[in-house]
């Protein structure tokens, strides 16, 4: 029985591999991109958006609408996970880790926070951006839950704060999009306001603002996901 299963698996996987190789062969040659959109972006991205990091320029300027879709997906995932896991059972104690780990992370966590803020705000100058920095922000909440116990996380960084940050981030992102219409352009257009020259921190128009908003939104969303997965690990007797 298991032998026939193995044979079927091998046949299906090899068929998939052949299909993928054929599809890979259909991709146009690199030299056919000479006058295409990617060449246009490489040549004109700094002039048109003011962002030195082309990846961020594409994500939050040329294709900002796609980023809005991505953050909507994360919003849906957070809503679904909270809806599914919101029952309160399984009282398992959670005191956190030992004293040494607690002290070490007490010294380390401010620097992790600073690093995430650096990645978010310098998204248009150096590698990184709102999404990556936001995930590091979410990791701080995970550190709180694992090292200090989920009760600490509940008291210091309450679910209300997380929800406010997430919904506020999403609303501000859409608000920045409508600001583009208000300034006489399209939805999520880069208005190029507050420009202090290429390479400075305040440049590239609305890209740093969208980065900040998305960073806090993603960080709070991932913190909500992790928190709702371990929220049942409270001590017995602590009522919520």
């Amino acid at each position, binding site marked *: 029985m298991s032998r026939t299963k193995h044979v079927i698996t091998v046949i299906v996987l090899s068929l998939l591999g052949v299909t993928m190789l054929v599809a890979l062969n259909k991709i146009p040659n690199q030299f056919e991109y000479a006058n295409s959109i990617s060449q246009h972006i490489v040549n004109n991205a700094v002039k048109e958006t003011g962002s030195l*990091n082309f*990846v*961020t320029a594409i994500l939050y300027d040329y294709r900002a609408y796609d980023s809005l879709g991505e953050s909507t997906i994360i919003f849906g995932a957070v809503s679904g996970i909270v809806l599914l896991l919101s029952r309160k*059972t*399984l009282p*398992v104690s959670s005191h956190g880790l030992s004293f040494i780990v607690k002290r070490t992370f007490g010294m380390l966590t401010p620097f992790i926070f600073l690093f995430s803020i650096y*990645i978010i705000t310098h998204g248009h100058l150096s*590698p*990184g*951006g709102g*999404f*990556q920095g936001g*995930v*590091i922000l*979410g*990791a701080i909440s*995970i550190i709180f839950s*694992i090292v200090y116990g989920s009760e600490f996380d509940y008291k210091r960084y309450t679910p209300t704060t997380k929800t406010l940050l997430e919904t506020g981030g999403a609303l501000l992102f859409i608000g920045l999009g409508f600001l583009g219409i208000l300034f006489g352009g399209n939805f999520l257009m880069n208005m190029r306001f507050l420009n202090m020259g290429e390479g400075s921190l305040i440049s590239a128009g609305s890209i740093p603002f969208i980065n900040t908003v998305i960073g806090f939104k993603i960080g709070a969303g*991932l913190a909500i*996901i*992790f928190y709702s*997965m*371990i929220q*049942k*690990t409270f001590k017995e007797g602590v009522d919520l």
Partner: protein
Amino acid sequence: MVILKYLLLIFLIMTAFLAINFKEVLVSIIFLSIFSIILTTLYLIHNAPDVALAEAVIGAGLNTAIFMSVISQVREGKNSIFREDD
């Protein structure tokens, strides 16, 4: 640099194979985390620091934490699927 690249690719395949084939789930998660770190280095070698940062943070950090919490709850909880029937 080319030798390093191929060495890393071999290690990538090895860690993926071990992550699938280990019986102990905890060891599989650790191998998945190592897989992510090797993939991060490969992205950096191929000049894609943005993707490397995302892979390091999500693959090695967030995934491991979430999988660990799920594994600990599945093992220790009242509704544990590993609980022996009495």
